[in-house]
C-alpha cells in the first residue's frame, strides 16, 4: 500500500467547495475540526497563563514560609471588605460572561453584546476598587521593596509582603485590563460584523474561558493575601 493524494471533492463528499460556511478557514477540513482546534488552543494558552502566575505564587509561599509573622501582621493592613467586594464583583462578571456565551448559542447576538457590556462594567468596578486600595497604600507607605516607608509591622522584611502583593495584584489587574480590551474588540469587531452565530461562537467561548481564568486567579489571590491565618 502507499500513501496518496485524492481529489478533494471526492473525499469531502457532502460538502463540495461551494458549501463551505463563511467562518471556515481554508486550511481546515470542516467546521468541527476548526471549532475543536480553536478551543484546544485556548486551553493551552490558559495552561501557560497558570504557569506564568505559578512563579508569583511560588515567591509568595517561599517568603511566607521564611517570614510567617510578617505575613500575618502585614495582611492586616489590607482592606478585607474591599477584597471581598471585588470577589463578588468578579464572580458576578463570570456569571454574565457565561450568559453571554449562552446568548450566542441561542442566536441572541444582542443579548450577547448586552451581557458583555455588563461584564466590562464589572471589570471597571473591580479596577476602581483596586485604585482606591492602591492609593491608600501609596498614602501610608506600604509599598514594595525600597519604597516601603510604613512603620508598625513587627517581623523581618515587611516590604517583601508588599512587593509580592503589588506584583501579584498588578499582574492580575493587567489581565483584567487586557480582558476589557478583548471584550471591547469582540463587541466592535466580530459581533458587530455578524461573524458570530449559533453555528460558530468559538471566539466568544474563548473570551469567556480567558475571563473565567482571570476570575479564578483572583479566587486564589483573595484568601492568600487578605485572609492569612
Amino acid at each position, binding site marked *: 500500500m502507499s*500513501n496518496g*493524494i485524492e*481529489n*478533494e471533492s471526492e473525499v469531502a463528499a457532502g460538502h463540495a467547495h461551494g458549501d463551505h460556511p463563511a467562518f471556515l478557514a481554508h486550511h481546515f477540513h470542516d467546521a468541527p475540526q476548526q471549532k475543536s*482546534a480553536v478551543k484546544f488552543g485556548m486551553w493551552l494558552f490558559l495552561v501557560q497563563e497558570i504557569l506564568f*502566575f505559578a512563579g508569583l505564587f*511560588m515567591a509568595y509561599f517561599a517568603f511566607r514560609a521564611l517570614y510567617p509573622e510578617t505575613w500575618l501582621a502585614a495582611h492586616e493592613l489590607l482592606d478585607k471588605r474591599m477584597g471581598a467586594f471585588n470577589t463578588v464583583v468578579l464572580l458576578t462578571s463570570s456569571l454574565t460572561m457565561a450568559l453571554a456565551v449562552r446568548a450566542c448559542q441561542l442566536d441572541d447576538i444582542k443579548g450577547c453584546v448586552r451581557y458583555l457590556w455588563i461584564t466590562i462594567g464589572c471589570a471597571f468596578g473591580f479596577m476602581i476598587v483596586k485604585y482606591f486600595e492602591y492609593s491608600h497604600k501609596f498614602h501610608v507607605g506600604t509599598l*514594595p521593596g525600597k519604597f516601603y516607608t510604613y512603620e508598625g509591622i513587627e517581623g523581618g522584611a515587611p516590604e517583601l509582603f508588599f512587593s509580592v502583593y503589588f*506584583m501579584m495584584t498588578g499582574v492580575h489587574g493587567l489581565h483584567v485590563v487586557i480582558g476589557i480590551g478583548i471584550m471591547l474588540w469582540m463587541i466592535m469587531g466580530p459581533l458587530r460584523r455578524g461573524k458570530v452565530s449559533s453555528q460558530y461562537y468559538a471566539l466568544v467561548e474563548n473570551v469567556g474561558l480567558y475571563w473565567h481564568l482571570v476570575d479564578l486567579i483572583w479566587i486564589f489571590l483573595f484568601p492568600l493575601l487578605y485572609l492569612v491565618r
Partner: protein
Amino acid sequence: MSSTTGDLAAGHHGHDHGSYLTAKRGLMSWLFTLDHKRIGMMYLGSILTFFLVGGLLALAFRVELATAEPDLFTGSTYNRLFTLHGAIMVFLVLVPSIPASLGNFLLPLMLGAKDVAFPRLNLLSFHIYMLGAAFLVFTLLAGGVETGWTFYTPYSSTTDSAVVSALMGAFILGFSSILTGINFIVTIHKMRAPGLTWLRLPLFVWASYATSLIQVLATPVIAITLFLLVFERTMGIGIFDPALGGDPVLFQHFFWFYSHPVVYVMILPAFGVISETVSIHSRKHIFGYTAIAASSVAIAAIGFLVWGHHMFVSGQSELAGTIFSLITFGVAVPTAIKVFSWVATMYKGSIELNTVMLYTLSFLFIFAIGGLTGLFLATLAVDVHMHDTYFVVAHFHYVMMGGTLMGFIAGIHHWWPKMTGRMFPELPAKIGALLVFVGFNLTFFTQFVAGSRGMPRRYHEYAPEFETWQFLSTVGSFVLAAGLFLTLFYLLWSMKGGAKAPKNPWEAKTLEWETESPPIEHNFAGQVICRTGPYDFDEIDTSRA
C-alpha cells in the same frame, strides 16, 4: 514507491499550483505571509544570521584565549562578549532553531495538512521573535551586558550595563516560543490527514510534540522571572535582593526551572531529525519506533524535575542535592534508549554515506560524549570539583552545539531539496562535514581536559599551564568556522546553481515527500490519505505496510 491517485495537475479549486516560493512576489508577500513554509524559511534565514553573529563573537574571544595573557580585550569587554554570545546562541538560535525553521516548514507537510492550526498566530510568533531580536541587538549596541546569559542576581540587579533591554529581549522571545508551542500541539492533535494515526507519525513529529509541551509549560516561568528581575532592577522590589530580605537562590530556582527543560527544547528536535535521517539513509525501518516516541515524552516529563543539579553548590540542602542528582541520572535512561535504537537501526541497514549520514554519525559520536559527561556532572562529589570549570563548558557545548547543531545541519541538508527545490553539491558538503566534525572536537574536547585539570570558566586571563589546551581550542574553532562558512557558501550557491531536485530524492515514505519539491502553495493538490507507516521502505519490510 509512492503514488498519487488522479491527475491533479489542473487547479480544480482555482488555486495556483505553482511553487510556494514563486506563488506571490515582493518583500511584503514574505514578511506578512501566512504560509507556514515561508514563515519557516524566514525563521531559518534569521536564525542562521544570528548564528553567524553569535559565532563571530565566539571567534573574537577564542582569539583572546589563545594566550594566557590578556592581549586584546579588557576583562569587562571579554565578559560582554561571552554574555552576548551565550544570550544570542540560546535565545535567538538554539531555542527556535529546529522547531521554528524546519518544524514550521515540515510539520503540516508531514501531517498531510494545508497549514498549521493557527497561521496568523504563527506569523505573530515570527514578528514577536523579530521584536525580541531587536531588543538583543539594541543591547549589543547599547554597550552590552556582562552578567553571563544566566543573569544571576544580585549582580544582574546592581551592575550598570544594559541588563534591562537584554531581559526584555529574552522575555519577548519567550512568548514567540510559547505561541509556536501552542500552535504545534494543536496542529499535531487536530490537523492529521485521514489514516495518519498517532503511531504512524514520523518521529520528528513526536519530538516536536514533546518539545512543544516544554515550550508551553516551562517558558511562562522564565517570563515571570525576567519580569520580576526587570522590576527588581528598575524599582528595587527586593524579591531577589538579600539586602531587602529577598532570596537570590530563589532566582536560581526559577531560572533553572525553565533553563534546564529548555535544553530539551534545543535537543529533542535534533533527536527527531536524527530519527528520520538514520532510518531513511540506512534504508531500514527505525528500530524501536514506540520506544523512541515515548522516550521523547519521557525526557520532556523527567526534565522538569532535575533543575536543582545546577545548584549543587548554591547552598541547596544535601537531601535536595541527592534527590536532584538521582533524578538527573534518570534522564539518561530514555536518552540511552534513543541512542541504542539509532545504532540498532543502522545495524545491517544499507547505509549511504552521504552528507546527511555524515552529520548523523557526527551527531551520534558527539552527543554520546556530551550525554556521558553529563553523568559526571550529575554526580554530586564530582560536580563539586567540576562546577564552573571548562569541563561544564565543554559538556554543554557537546550537547547544545554539537548535538543540536549536528542535528540541525543534518536536517537542513536532508530537507534542502524539499525546501528549495535544489540539490546541494555532495563533494563540498562532505568536506564541510569533515571540517565541522574535526573542528568541533578539537575546539571542545581540549576544554574537557583543561576543565578537568581545574581551568575555571569565564576568565580571560589564566594560568600558563592551560595555554596549550586553550591554543588548540582556538585552532579548532577556526577549523569549525571554515567548515561552517564552506557549508554556507555552497548552500547559498545551490539555491541558484544546484541541480533541480526530484520530488523524493531519498525515496522516503513520510508525507512531505508526496508533494512537489519545492511544495506548491497549499502543500498538496488534494486531500492526503495516509496508508503506510513512516519508515516502511519498499525494498525492505513491505510486509508491515
